[in-house]
């Protein structure tokens, strides 16, 4: 039905180009990058702009105190490469008020070969990342995704110096744990749930390491652009009440708080920072990297937002700001066993009940199988996730308790 009741719809702006006639807005110097329509910067002023923004994002919340031990999650990608560079740069500054005072340690988590790339490519990417870490003045640690299933008595991370990708005795290379991890991934029937599962697993592993290493905070390199894409994807997965925790500067759902010092940088700024500073990011391929735009909710949303951003350059920033205006859910609620978010309180007339009723009616299930809300252990979206676990057809799903659907023991 026609429901065009809205008037303040974004207006397409013509594509922003670097105009030869424009000069740096601060010093009138030679232009290097245009951020928004009028924000032209020369190299020096862009450097000042970037490092100031990084410092002030951390500074304005007054969370991080001098000497705090911080675990910096580094994936090799554009966002975390820029973050690592800004930290190293900030620690070496001579001017006292510009110097970063906390004490960082880098954590690199080796991902699996999700896109089935050749050994040569994987080896080359790993080598590049390891070399980057060796170049750093900071101490570094390495873990791997399968450590989520590491044997109880073994370590889940090693120091950079103790890591050798070819050494079978290296504790973070565990074939048994890796095949268990693969079988969990493959038990999920869609790429959307696989990506969701990987994200939750990664989050839990970082927590594990941060807790073991007794860190005060975790830094992740999520940019404004990534935040906007992830936020819209979360919305489409029923994670409305988790948006605030997931995407604001501070995420305190876990044992160690996660901070996002890169969240005010758009992708373009990060890319130009990396060009300016000569840092070379390594993008690890995901499950959907070489698949179509409709492979997963995340991939679709990414291409959708990138397309919109082309005609409506304020898209990312508007979504980002919308997210900032939302509220944290009641922290006293029941916590989801899987993702550790607060489970949404039950409402009689709700999408959640409507969806359950639809399944109940069209599959002719007993009322008993339908949750009454009191015994829920999973949040709405994790419930969707476990519903996409392929079930052995000899076992009737109705006969199983929900615990049997859980991905972690």
């Amino acid at each position: 039905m026609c429901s065009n009741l809205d008037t303040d719809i974004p207006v397409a702006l013509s594509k922003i180009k670097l105009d030869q006639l424009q000069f740096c807005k601060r010093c009138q110097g030679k232009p290097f990058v245009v951020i928004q329509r009028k924000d032209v910067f020369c190299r020096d002023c862009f450097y000042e702009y970037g490092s100031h923004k990084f410092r002030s994002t951390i500074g304005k919340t007054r969370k991080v105190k001098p000497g705090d031990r911080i675990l910096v999650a580094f994936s090799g990608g554009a966002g975390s490469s820029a973050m690592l560079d800004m930290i190293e740069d900030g620690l070496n500054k001579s001017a006292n008020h510009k110097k970063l005072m906390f004490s960082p340690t880098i954590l690199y988590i080796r991902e699996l070969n999700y896109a089935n790339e050749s050994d040569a490519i994987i080896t080359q990417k790993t080598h590049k990342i390891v070399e980057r870490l060796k170049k750093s003045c900071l101490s570094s640690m390495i873990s791997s995704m399968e450590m989520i299933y590491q044997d109880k008595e073994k370590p889940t991370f090693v120091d950079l110096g103790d890591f050798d990708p070819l050494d079978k005795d290296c504790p973070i290379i565990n074939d048994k744990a890796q095949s268990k991890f693969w079988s969990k991934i493959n038990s999920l029937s869609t790429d959307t749930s696989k990506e969701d599962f990987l994200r939750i697993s990664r989050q839990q592993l970082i927590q594990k390491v941060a807790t073991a290493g007794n860190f005060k905070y975790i830094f992740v390199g999520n940019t404004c652009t990534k935040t906007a894409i992830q936020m819209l994807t979360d919305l489409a997965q029923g994670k409305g009440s988790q948006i605030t925790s997931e995407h604001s500067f501070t995420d305190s759902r876990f044992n160690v708080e996660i901070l996002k010092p890169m969240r005010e940088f758009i992708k373009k700024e990060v890319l130009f920072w990396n060009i300016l500073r000569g840092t070379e990011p390594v993008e690890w391929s995901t499950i959907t990297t070489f698949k179509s735009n409709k492979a997963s909710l995340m991939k679709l949303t990414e291409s959708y937002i990138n397309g919109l951003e082309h005609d409506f350059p304020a898209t990312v920033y508007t979504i980002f700001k919308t997210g900032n205006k939302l509220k944290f859910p009641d922290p006293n609620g029941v916590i989801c066993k899987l993702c550790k978010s607060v489970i949404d309180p039950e409402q009689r007339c709700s999408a959640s009940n409507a969806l359950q009723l639809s399944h109940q009616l069209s599959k002719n299930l007993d009322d008993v199988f339908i949750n009454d809300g009191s015994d829920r252990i999973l949040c709405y979206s994790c419930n969707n996730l476990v519903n996409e676990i392929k079930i052995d057809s000899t076992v009737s799903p109705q006969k199983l308790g929900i615990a049997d659907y859980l991905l972690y023991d």
Partner: protein
Amino acid sequence: MPLNCARCKAARAILKRPKTRDALCKECFFHCFENEIHNTIVEGNLFKPGDKVAIGASGGKDSTVLAYIMKLLNERHNYRLNLVLLSIDEGITGYRDDSLETVKQNQKDYALPLTILSYKDLYGWSMDDIVRQIGKKNNCTFCGVFRRQALDRGAIKLGCNLIVTGHNADDIAETILMNVLRGDIARLKRCTAIKTGSGDNPEENVVPRCKPFKYTYEKEIVMYAYFKKLHYFSTECIYAPNAYRGHVRSYLKDLESIRSSAILDIIHSGEVLAVDEGIKLPVLGACERCSYISSQRICKACVMLEGLSKGLPKLGIVKSSKVKMIKREAITDGKKCDEKCCSFTCKSETDNKTNCKS
């Protein structure tokens, strides 16, 4: 190999439910479809016995199925509602001419009384007049703003205390996405409400409204109409729809194709997200000219009407200094109503007077 129905396990399945992707026979699909809407009505407390309910009828699929299902459930479950059809004629040649025929057919088929009100009667301008004045851009905005008030005006005229509209789950999910994309936090908070304008929560509407199809998928409404052989008029409005909304709609369709529950998942997100109390939301008052509920001193329809008569059709659509200027002028010149505005009379008047034409 023919597939058996997932529900009765006996009959042959003839469709795959878009919402759950279960294969169902025709009878089981009807059963699910009707019971889910009944459940929404009961759980959402949408009606009380004795309500006089105006069904916004456009002749399109949503409102045709809505009229059919309201009549059916009202009789089956004894809601004891007094149902009437209310149509708005925007005055678009070749669009309403045919769809109004459909509404008249609905009136006969379902034995429900029908009232048709035109924009020309209410505002002095038909949509064709407006398009002649402003061209084909932005006219959906006029249409939407005018229709919103027109339904209220009509419902008051008919003595109805409630309006039901055919907004389905797709429409609501789309509106949620739309409000996130343009950062409209006030609407984001309101747009998931199944019922508006009632109790201590005064909303934009004068007459309370509800949406029995809030959790019903658009594709299932089309399927239901198809298998029930319901007669509806299917055409898009001939005036180009907004391109931005079109983007959002196709994104939503793609989300649904990836995960069938995505539409309900978005509505769930909308229902549970909470707006920070520190964020200021616009306070709703009454328009100084027509008394329609508005967050501005002059409501959108009045600003638009003024723009039309002064040859400044962008008024109310684009926020410009010119708009502010005229708004200020309108406030200071003290004239509460000009001729056209009186065509939608003040609220106090309408309580005892039903004639709204000037």
